[in-house]
């Protein structure tokens, strides 16, 4: 089993431009240290109809009200500002920005626990002897020689589908055939319950695939799944 950079097709080149936008990095940096409530704010504001900040301050009194401390309010304001900048990119672009933010956030959280010989990389394929390579690269990989991990990242639970689950499980199974303990997971910037409802209906094999929903993103930095 080995990792390889994905080929740069036209879509990837365009998407790379979004991934490298400083807004993506800024949003991910803020969300890296965010509470679940702040991440809910980001999800709502990035996906909202309205982009005036006062609306969102009213929706989240626990973050912006008098009961919130000055530090929390300040951090929440930064998250709100970044989220509304994403929303203001327009309907077509915002979905790509949101996806890029989730990927960047995942990579940053994983990097917190990755060792020096365990690089965290993006847009990578996993190749196995005698197996045709998958078309879609993995969003984030932790390339440990002994205990590699691959992650697919989704903005919403609706992104959980049979193709994604099958690809992850196939990779795990092929790795196992080579005696490699490949951990596979899907990171979803959405509520756990919604993800579980989605998974409950899926007939694709996912019993060895980890789910990392919005409420538990911090587990990515806390230890190997």
């Amino acid at each position: 089993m080995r990792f390889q950079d994905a080929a740069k097709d036209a879509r990837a080149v365009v998407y790379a431009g979004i991934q490298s936008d400083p807004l993506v990095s800024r949003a991910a940096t803020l969300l890296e240290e965010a509470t679940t409530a702040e991440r809910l704010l980001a999800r709502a504001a990035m996906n909202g109809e309205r982009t005036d900040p006062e609306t969102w301050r009213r929706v989240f009194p626990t973050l912006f009200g008098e009961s919130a401390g000055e530090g929390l309010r300040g951090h929440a304001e930064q998250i709100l500002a970044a989220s509304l900048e994403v929303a203001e990119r327009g309907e077509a672009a915002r979905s790509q920005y949101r996806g890029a933010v989730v990927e960047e956030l995942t990579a940053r959280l994983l990097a917190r626990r990755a060792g020096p010989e365990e690089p965290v990389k993006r847009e990578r394929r996993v190749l196995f002897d005698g197996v045709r390579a998958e078309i879609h690269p993995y969003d984030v990989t932790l390339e440990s020689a002994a205990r590699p991990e691959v992650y697919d990242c989704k903005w919403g639970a609706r992104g959980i589908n049979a193709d994604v689950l099958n690809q992850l499980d196939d990779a795990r199974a092929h790795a196992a055939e080579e005696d490699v303990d490949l951990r596979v997971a899907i990171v979803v910037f959405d509520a756990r319950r919604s993800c579980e409802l989605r998974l409950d209906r899926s007939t694709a094999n996912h019993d060895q695939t980890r789910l990392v929903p919005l409420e538990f993103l911090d587990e990515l930095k806390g230890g190997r799944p």
Partner: protein
Amino acid sequence: MSESGGSNSAADVAARAAEAYEALGGLAETVEDEWQYVTDLVDAYLPSIRGLVGADPGRALAADVIAAVDEAICEIALITDPHKAIDWLSTFPHLVALALGGDVDRRAGAADGAVGDLDTADLHTTEPDGDSPFRLLRGGR
């Protein structure tokens, strides 16, 4: 009275949220391929939203709490894209729960402390939860 013209009791606010959520579900279910998922979301979250009333349905809520829920209702009322409506079927209940100080993660019939419980206090900490599905789905490894 709130800006939307409703009353200020927990029961009334939760009822307004539930009504708005049902309407959002009606829009979302026009995406035929996602009918089952939409139905599952509404079946799961609608009772949970109604359940946010708590033990004292008649209790008066603070003005900022009422405004938060009504503002969230206004937000989903603006949605015309059924695909976006599906996204909000997942988000809206958690906004309402955060404002009202309740939990919409609990599965119907789940006992206290069961996996799936996540109260409002948990939403303001960055500490991982002990009942994390990330841990539970490790398959015993």
